């Protein structure tokens, strides 16, 4: 019997001081930890955890992050956000990372009046008509415009072909914006082909593109498919330059694509070369020391979402979700790690855009464009 008493005593001694301390503030992390865009979720999780080490508390209370996996699926995103809100009692949610899943999850957050901040969902529909949904990134009409400018001015392309994922809001949206801007700028879209998430064979689509002989291929898609598409294209002798969006910035692009992805240009949120704020330098140092991985867009954007959320809780002076919402919408010139962040009344952020390139198996910084 003594061992039972011992255990009970240990539990009481362990629990009582914790209970006497301030109750933690629960923040939800709604991330795709598994599934087709798992790389994004895992990079974001590293970012949020490192950010928490820099800002571990608000209002004198420790911050607790509750993770919920969306499996990179829309239905699971909606379930995961309701679990965070109903079961974990979070006061604010960081996530999701890709547009389709964020749109699927935001409906529940909006109805239950829990603010949600997406680090990287770029489709305009994410925040449209919603009071409680914000983001700390640029939006796709801007990304499409920058990509079209890049194609016309830098890559000197007169014609383009597009390959995109018909099942992802991000891909369909960005494709439309690029198409509009590229045509307005004097370019010509020769044709577009599509596929569905999970497809692995793109040879008929690519041979169609090959027969059109475009100057460039625009691929507003995610990293796994982009790597396989580049590989299959190069194998069949289709060597037109590929231009992509922020959805390809994951180490997997280079691991899976190898030599085939060399020279791919893409618009992105961030590159370590652009770090200019004190917060950025501090974070970069800590992240390199503790995690030791490459500091990419999804890590940096998610850390910034965390900092913006903590800043809003501090300014709200309360953990009331409605007050946090008001504070979030008043975020102005906040010095994050990716630069100054201002959130407009429509929930979107004003952010510069970075252009990166794959060179010698690395993401290399090319230029920054203010949309």
């Amino acid at each position, binding site marked *: 019997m003594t061992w039972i008493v011992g255990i009970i005593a240990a539990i009481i001694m362990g629990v009582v001081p914790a209970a006497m301390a301030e109750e933690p503030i629960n923040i939800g992390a709604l991330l795709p930890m598994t*599934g087709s865009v798992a790389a994004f979720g895992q990079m974001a999780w590293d970012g949020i955890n490192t950010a928490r080490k820099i800002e571990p508390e608000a209002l004198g209370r420790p911050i607790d992050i509750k993770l919920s996996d969306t499996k990179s699926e829309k239905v699971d995103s909606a379930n995961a956000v309701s679990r965070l809100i109903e079961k974990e009692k979070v006061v604010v949610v960081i996530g999701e990372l890709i547009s389709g899943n964020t749109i699927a999850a935001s409906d529940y957050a909006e109805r239950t009046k829990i603010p949600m901040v997406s680090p990287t969902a770029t489709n305009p529909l994410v925040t449209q008509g919603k009071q409680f949904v914000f983001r700390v990134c640029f939006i796709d009409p801007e990304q499409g415009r920058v990509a079209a400018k890049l194609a016309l001015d830098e890559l000197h392309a007169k014609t383009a072909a597009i390959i995109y994922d018909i099942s992802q809001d991000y891909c369909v949206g960005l494709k439309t914006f690029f198409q509009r801007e590229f045509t307005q700028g004097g370019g010509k879209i020769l044709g577009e082909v599509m596929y569905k998430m999970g497809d692995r064979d793109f*040879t008929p689509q690519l041979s*169609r593109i090959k027969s059109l002989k475009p100057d460039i291929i625009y691929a507003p898609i995610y990293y796994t498919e982009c*790597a396989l598409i580049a590989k299959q294209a190069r194998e069949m002798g289709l060597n037109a330059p590929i231009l992509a969006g922020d959805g390809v910035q994951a180490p997997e692009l280079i691991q899976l694509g190898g030599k085939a992805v060399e020279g791919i240009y893409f618009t992105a949120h961030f590159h370590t070369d652009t770090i200019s704020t004190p917060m950025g330098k501090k974070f970069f140092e800590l992240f390199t020391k503790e995690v030791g991985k490459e500091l990419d867009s999804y890590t940096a954007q998610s850390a910034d979402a965390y900092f913006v959320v903590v800043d809003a809780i501090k300014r709200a002076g309360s953990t009331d979700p409605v007050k946090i919402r008001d504070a979030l919408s008043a975020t102005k010139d906040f010095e994050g790690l990716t630069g100054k962040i201002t959130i407009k009344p429509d929930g979107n952020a004003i952010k510069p855009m970075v252009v990166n390139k794959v060179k010698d198996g690395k993401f290399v910084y090319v230029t920054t464009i203010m949309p």
Partner: protein
Amino acid sequence: MDYSFALQQLVYGLTVGCLYGLLAIGYSMVYGVLRLINFAHGDLLMVSAYIGFFGIVIFHLPWPVSFAGAIALTALLGILIDRGAYKPIRKSPRINALITAIGVSFLLENVALVTIGGRPKSFPTPGFVSGAIVVGDVSIPTLSVWVFVVTVVLLTLCMAVVKKTRIGIAMRALSRDMETVMLMGVDKDRVISFTFALGSALAAAGGIMWCMKYPAVEPFMGVIPGLKAFVAAVLGGIGSISGAAMGGMILGLAEVFIVAVQPEWSGYRDAVAFFLMIVILLTRPTGIMGERLPD
């Protein structure tokens, strides 16, 4: 669409078709003997891909050893799945076994997810499969030649085993009348294990070639090929080996040509595959090569 463009698509379509066909044979054989649709079959492709991947990358084995090991271990896993999950419920209604098969499929996927993680890994491709043979305007990837040759060899071997050997005769007999065959003194469990081993080995071979062509190894990589192979098996007439191979070819060619001819429909590639299945099932309920049902 000109002549060489069509020939080029034929090459691509046959490659995809061979891979579907290899996987479909396993579905068909297990169904033929047990009247069980083994939904975990597609996930064996994933298992063999991971074993091949770890063999080369972690244990630095030469690729022939690693691939042979992957095929052997996957065949063993096939037997274990049958012994562990299907044998205890052999006497239960058929729907129980079907649901169990779905459970085994989820189990394999999620064990891989938890132990290895969801991020795709790059499959190391041996050098001899890269490059292409150019004939006129048509380029035939070396890998496609390999896929085609390996598929034909395995298919022939498989047919020979089923038609000529004692165990093959036992397999065919079991599929006709299980009880009578048992009365003749045939060890039923040995024959069933052999069926699973053979089917799983084919799935493993298909998995390795699949990864060489689409080098992203992840826990759910077997779901879509598994589903397509199931369609191929049903198309060709489930239970028939040559039918499964033919179903795979038809499906592969149909998918490639629909995209090549009508690029606007490329998002509906899967819809086309399933539409084809519905049409064939409506006109020939037992598939192209299936046995005719007694009226």
